[in-house]
């Protein structure tokens, strides 16, 4: 008789696929938020599995800060083509041009916070009523309080103290006109689960995740790519190092890890030995103790 036990990755996958299908069944116009990072890649892969052999019944939405790594965009376009999916791009640059948001100034300027406005505008413009995201509860303490189906009011805001209870595997996506849901199918995955799953399923990743030589500079004990979107202080000197990304955001908020890991196996053993969380390299979380909770309430990813 077959071994009737799922390993932890298969069980997590089964839960996530169930949630992705629930979105397709309960909403009129869902979309998948795609950043080009490993979590959204895993989401795209499971969405493909969930509806096989039919096409994925919702488009991908990419909020482009204009400060993306080139490798991210190349990977995005190739994947979209392979999956036969539709892509909607929301541009932060355009939001700035239209005066919806103002560019931050100074050495620490980032478009990370501005993305929220572009994201909400894009969801509204296309009438999306559910946005699937790759947020995980283990990433950050405010995310640990998220539901799978997370209700947003008509202003796109999250009220963490008044969330719908979620019991068993029953998901309630009922809403009034103008409200929408954020849905987090990989809530229960950890960083390690994501990497192990990528290995188990042999999913190709952007080259940024593997070691490469790059011009970098150090700021507040974190290495950043020496690329135009980040203005450097005169004291910040550029050097070439062997690095890789542990998470991928846009250039201004992605810290690089010194690493020679060239295969998924090497990455996994590097993470297993790591004593810093993956968001330890994310400048956007370091602004305050509750930086993520504050951004999330406003409608951030």
């Amino acid at each position, binding site marked *: 008789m*077959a071994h*009737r*036990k*799922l*390993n*932890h*990755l298969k*069980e997590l996958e*089964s*839960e996530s*696929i*169930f949630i992705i*299908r*629930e979105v*397709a069944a309960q909403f009129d116009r869902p979309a998948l938020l795609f950043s080009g990072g490993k979590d959204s890649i895993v989401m795209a892969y499971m969405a493909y*599995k*969930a509806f*096989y*052999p*039919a096409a994925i019944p919702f488009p991908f939405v990419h909020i482009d800060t204009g400060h993306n790594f080139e490798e991210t965009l190349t990977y995005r376009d190739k994947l979209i083509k392979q999956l036969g999916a539709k892509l909607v791009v929301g541009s932060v640059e355009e939001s700035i041009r239209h005066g919806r948001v103002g560019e931050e100034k100074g050495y620490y300027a980032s478009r990370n916070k501005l993305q929220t406005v572009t994201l909400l505008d894009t969801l509204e413009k296309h009438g999306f009523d559910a946005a699937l995201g790759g947020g995980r*509860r*283990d990433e950050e*303490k*405010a995310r*640990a*309080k998220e539901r799978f189906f997370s209700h947003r009011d008509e202003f796109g805001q999250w009220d*963490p*103290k008044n*969330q*719908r*209870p*979620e*019991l*068993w*595997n*029953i998901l*309630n996506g*009922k*809403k*009034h006109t103008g409200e929408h849901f954020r849905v987090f199918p990989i809530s229960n995955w*950890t960083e*390690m*689960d994501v990497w*192990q799953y990528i*290995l*188990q*399923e*042999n999913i190709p990743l952007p080259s940024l995740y593997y070691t490469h030589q790059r011009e970098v500079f150090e700021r507040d004990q974190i290495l950043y790519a020496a690329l135009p979107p980040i203005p450097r202080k005169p004291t910040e000197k550029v050097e070439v190092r062997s690095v890789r990304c542990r998470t991928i955001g846009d250039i201004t908020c992605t810290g690089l890890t010194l690493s020679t890991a060239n*295969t998924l*196996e090497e990455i*996994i*053993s590097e993470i297993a*030995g*790591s*004593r810093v*969380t993956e968001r*330890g390299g994310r400048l956007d979380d370091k602004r305050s*103790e*509750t930086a993520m*909770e504050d951004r999330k309430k406003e409608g951030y990813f």
Partner: protein
Amino acid sequence: MDDKKASGLAGMETGYLDMELLRFSTAGSVDDGKSTLIGRLLYDSKSIFEDQLQSMREASSRMGDEGVNLALLTDGLRAEREQGITIDVAYRYFATPKRKFIIADTPGHIEYTRNMVTGASTADVAIVLVDARKGIVEQTKRHSYIASLLQIPNVILAINKMDLVNFSKDVFDAIQKEFEEITTILQFKKIYFIPISARDGDNVVYASANTPWYNGETLLGLLEKIPVHSNENSLPARFPVQYIIGSNNDKHPDYRGYAGRVSGGSFKVGEAILVLPSNKRSFIEAIHEGSKELNEAFTPQSVTIQLDGNIDINRGDMFVKFTAAYPRYSSTISLHVCWLNAVPLRIGGKYIVRQTTDETSAIVKDIRFKVNINTLENIEDDKTVNMNDIAHITIKTQKPLKYDDYSENRITGSLVLIDENTFETVGAGMIVSDPEVFSYNI
């Protein structure tokens, strides 16, 4: 994929692709050391990272604590950190080489019963904490009742703060005896008792030298060994249809597949099935998981099933094995309900019902009794069901539901009530079959 497993994953750090997943819940209040216990499990299993520790150190010193307050790890929202309490269910994750764990960490006060019920709904194990100095108190009874109501298969009574009673065996034995008396009226498959000190780590991850009289497992050792999903595959087969996949491209012309998650037992290609409620018979032609073809699908796999012939099938229908044990089928349903909303339950009130992937509406016919979850007594003369109350009620649904008794199947035996106007999830229901309701009969 298999090649890679064999070659690349032999190392200790990467060798555990084949871990099992165990979900457990904890309930407790500020003083009984629950957050400290979780912090201890994460800390001693090396699941806390340097930057988290640093941020906890800073927060601890701001709040005037000496050293690191492990409780800060689990309190995520601004209000929780400011008030030093857990408001909501917080999910935490850690892994050992044997298992991956999901902790549903819930506040223990009576006004948070709904959060405890939520956290317990998916748990395989409940950890009930007892303060060794105080013994069995109301809160212990409440947590035990919830674990029993939600049918969590295993309960661990962790008798904490043993350091404050000089690790006395007599204290431990007395608490165990008292608890065993209560649980004769509650039903647990298995109860374990462990003497611990969450603050100092005794018997949490490492066996304690202070309790030479205790020969059992440490808490973590037990969590690594308790069987999970042991009976799900021996249950009668259930497959609620979730979504219909249709495709008409060159590769897959006229494709029609039924997507869903196996919610009891297993299904094999070639088996005869019955589609409920239409009572149509068919055979399983193929089972897919993504593009991979399977011979058998079992609980809790998400798969796509193709059937022989052309039958009208909708979301909310259910596949069961032909001639096997059928679910019950009725529109009069008795259930235990935990009320989740500030607006009380109304007799005669109409609610939306969600059960598996099915949806209908229902009217509350009767509140039979409320449960005093501190004393475990039934109250028959008070029929107001407020937030956090647990009651036994009867509802009449617009169309019959296909269900099992909650004690037989936690997925097909559970439902939620949704407010028709606010769309909030207001009630969590566990179906109790009446003896007069017969099984589905053909």
